[in-house]
């Protein structure tokens, strides 16, 4: 056993190290000169993320036994790392356009954003419950602060406190669950967890293990905002600054499902059908509740909270089906969801004039004002609604196919029927956009960073709609 890290090991860790270094530099800069960071923090963040992306793309596989018990260097973790970095890049651009309208200091913000990214990458690459927990907490603590970052906004105070309290509760569930699992099998490592479970002979140990898994699932369900553990999401999404909401809607969601995938596909594949059946019980309320409540929303950040809850419900379906294709289905769905949601938030960035955020009624007549913005939003909304020929349809088709192969017919039928409700509230937004009501006084802002995000999202959606095969093949590598 080697007791030092070689160059290859460092290179394998490079994405994490670069993020950490970049974050610390920004924090240092802020403490010396606020004016300097105001100008340079965004560029530095973008450079850091780009470098980390490059490092993640080229990262070698480390086999050093100092690292492998804690971190995975498999294709799946590389996929998640790249995915998170792309999300981080987009959110940085959105934040840049946000700070053009709203006055606030930059340094801490981007430090926290990079820390949150660091946490996300840890989750995606975790090989042990402790790394997973560490990642989740790094992510969460950064987000608690980011949520209340606009100190002048009262609505943010409530959101940040609420998020912090409920997040702490979720973390305690999670850590307690991990403790119980450790108590049952004597290890927190993902390797050998399944064997450890199968070797459990006494029923008391099994009960301990099941309780542990149940608590872990619960903790993650909080993070993924799955009904009935979702109450925090609408208020927090509503109270946070718009780019932070975008980061939560996409980053946290993907992170939570990365954790689900790590635990239930990687560590404990098919460990017990009872788990799948219990999770099924979460899918129905999630889909029905989120979609029905989304019908009555008037504020778009809140609307996307419910939309996100509903998509979490859809994402649970392949998790339950657990067929060989399920992982690919989840990953593909996550990518499509991320691209479409980021595209929507890019459009919101143009319309974000005050702390109350963008109301649905603010969109009326948008087509008259800006055909470009309305085209981007239309494409992204259609994708979220899963209407063909957008990639959203294929993503859903993929989910349903895995569910069918696992003979979960009832789930598919419920999910399909609920998509009709979904189609209604998503399309209502489009209808409002194309209506010819008098235009608002305030024209959309001009913002190239948000425009870039919007265009890139649209390009990704169009490409994935027409020719998803190369991409699916690429994420399929993640399984092998």
């Amino acid at each position, binding site marked *: 056993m080697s007791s030092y890290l070689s160059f290859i090991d460092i290179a394998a860790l490079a994405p994490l190290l670069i993020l950490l270094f970049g974050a610390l530099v920004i924090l240092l800069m802020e403490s010396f000169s606020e004016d300097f960071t105001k100008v340079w923090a965004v560029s530095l963040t973008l450079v850091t993320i780009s470098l980390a992306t490059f490092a993640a793309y080229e990262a070698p596989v480390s086999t050093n036994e100092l690292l492998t018990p804690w971190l995975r260097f498999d294709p799946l973790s590389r996929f998640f790392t790249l995915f998170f970095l792309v999300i981080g890049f987009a959110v940085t651009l959105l934040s840049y356009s946000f700070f053009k309208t709203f006055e606030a200091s930059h340094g801490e913000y981007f430090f926290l954003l990079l820390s949150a990214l660091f946490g996300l990458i840890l989750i995606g690459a975790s090989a042990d419950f402790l790394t997973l927990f560490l990642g989740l907490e790094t992510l969460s603590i950064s987000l608690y602060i980011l949520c209340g970052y606009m100190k002048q906004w009262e609505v943010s105070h409530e959101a940040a406190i609420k998020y912090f309290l409920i997040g702490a509760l979720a973390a305690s569930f999670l850590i307690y669950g991990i403790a119980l699992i450790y108590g049952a099998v004597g290890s927190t490592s993902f390797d050998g967890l399944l064997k450890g479970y199968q070797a459990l002979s006494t029923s008391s140990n099994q009960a301990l293990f099941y309780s542990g898994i149940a608590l872990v699932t619960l903790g993650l369900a909080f993070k993924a905002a799955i009904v009935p553990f979702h109450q925090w999401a609408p208020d927090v999404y509503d109270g946070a600054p718009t780019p932070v909401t975008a980061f939560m809607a996409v980053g946290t969601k993907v992170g939570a499902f990365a954790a689900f995938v790590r635990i239930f596909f990687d560590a404990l594949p098919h460990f017990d059908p009872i788990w799948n059946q219990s999770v099924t019980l979460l899918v129905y309320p999630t889909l029905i509740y989120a979609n029905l409540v989304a019908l009555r929303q008037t504020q778009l950040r809140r609307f996307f909270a419910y939309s996100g809850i509903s998509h979490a419900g859809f994402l649970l379906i392949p998790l339950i089906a657990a067929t060989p294709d399920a992982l*690919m289905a989840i990953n593909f769905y996550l990518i499509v969801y991320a691209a479409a949601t980021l595209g929507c938030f890019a459009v919101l960035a143009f319309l974000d004039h005050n702390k109350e955020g963008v109301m649905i009624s603010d969109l009326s007549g948008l087509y008259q004002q800006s055909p470009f913005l309305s085209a981007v939003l239309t494409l992204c909304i259609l994708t979220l609604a899963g209407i063909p*020929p957008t990639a959203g349809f294929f993503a859903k088709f993929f989910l349903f196919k895995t569910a*069918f*192969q696992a003979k979960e017919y009832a789930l598919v*039928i419920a999910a*399909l*029927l609920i998509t009709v409700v979904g*189609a209604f509230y998503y399309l209502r937004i489009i209808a409002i956009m194309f209506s010819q009501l008098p235009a608002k006084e305030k024209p959309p802002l001009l913002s190239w960073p948000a425009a870039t995000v919007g265009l890139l999202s649209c390009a990704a959606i169009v490409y994935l709609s027409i020719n998803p095969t190369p991409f699916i*093949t690429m994420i399929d590598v993640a399984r092998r």
Partner: protein
Amino acid sequence: MTELLWLFLIPFILSLVAFALPSSNRTVVLLSLIPLALLIFNHNNWHNAIVDVVWIPALGIHFHLAVDSLSLVFLYLTAIIIPISLTAVGDISNSQSFYGLVFLLQGLLIGFFTARDLALFTVFWESMLLPLYFIINMWGKPDRQYASLKFLIYMIAGSALMVAAVLFLYVASSGTFNIDTLKQSASQSPLAIWTFAIFMLAFTVKTPLFPFHGWLPDAYYQAPVAGTILLSAILSKAGIYGIARIGLGLFPDLMIQWSPLFLTLAIIGVFYGAFAAWSQNDYKRLIAYSSFSHVNFILIGLFVWSQTAQAGAILQALNHGITIAALFLAAGWLEERLGFTSMNNIGGLAKFMPHLCWVTLLFVLSSVALPGTNSFVGELMILFGLFGQNPWLAALLGLTVVFSVVYMLRFMQKTYFEAPTFFQERWVDLNGKEMAIALVLIALIIGIGVYPTPVLNEIMTTTLAKD
């Protein structure tokens, strides 16, 4: 085969061009004739034209297009109707987007009428709604928002479960979406009856069969003229094509078994549409209901298990497409001159616009199936087929032909004949361009009416029932 791929791709290319570059109506109409020209010039080679490449291997979806006689009839219909609908586009804002959407719709329709992979079929089936939604939503009459959303929600609700049915067939057949392969296994699967019901619901909502027509009056009425033509002439035919391709193709036994129910609904629909048309005081709504009535007539032909009736139904689908497009076009011309669609205050317009009157009258005669016009052949075949199965029903249905004469002639009577009551300073009769379009339509109407044999030969090979 490359021609088929081009036929599919050309509308999409045209769509991009139309979106990107401002172009005059004349240019767009000329461009829209390209697919028709391709169809005609390559006419003899279309049979068995096939494109089959694996598209999304992870999902098992093939990009599989193929042409047979059934497809060909509907392809010709699409290629004829699209240019006609484009000529009906007047002076509108954002005409670039309008043309782009129409071409997009054409591409999706061509894909739909040739798709042989069930998943691909579903993709085209659902996506053709979007261009129409935007056409109604952006260029329709004042209540267009409501009408277009209602239309879309009806359609999405109707085919909500179609994905489940498609996946069920996929799993039951051990992993293929190929419609031709599914023929063997579709009826045998244990839940065949449910899959069949799901597909039929989707198709009958779009056609629409009675009682799924709730969306129709608003959508037809609120849409711009070109949109109404597309809805009535092509979109309803997509439903009919679906029933012929999937209903008759994959589930023939269930189709026979359930035909009494479907026949009853369709017959009610014919009568309902006729009475509703009779009581309208608005000519656009009147024609909308007449279309509903006639489409249900076509469905009767499909639901009767007889070769003559089925062939008649397919022929009538083509005929109805042409005739209803002509009627809505003529109604659009009238609306353009009057500025409204109510029949309350008008009368005797023949005095001011004789050409428009005679052209409309010819279209109306085709709609009421006068011998010598296209609809006569189709409706007669349907009635003949029905007579072989159930003479009483055929007699009952014969009555509706009388009804359609009554409401259609009422329309002619109120608007064009009677004493002139409505006065306007200057009347503009049909101009040269409109006359030319009308003549083309009249030629088609009379051509098929007098000499339907070539079309019928094509269609006869497609029917499943053998007398």
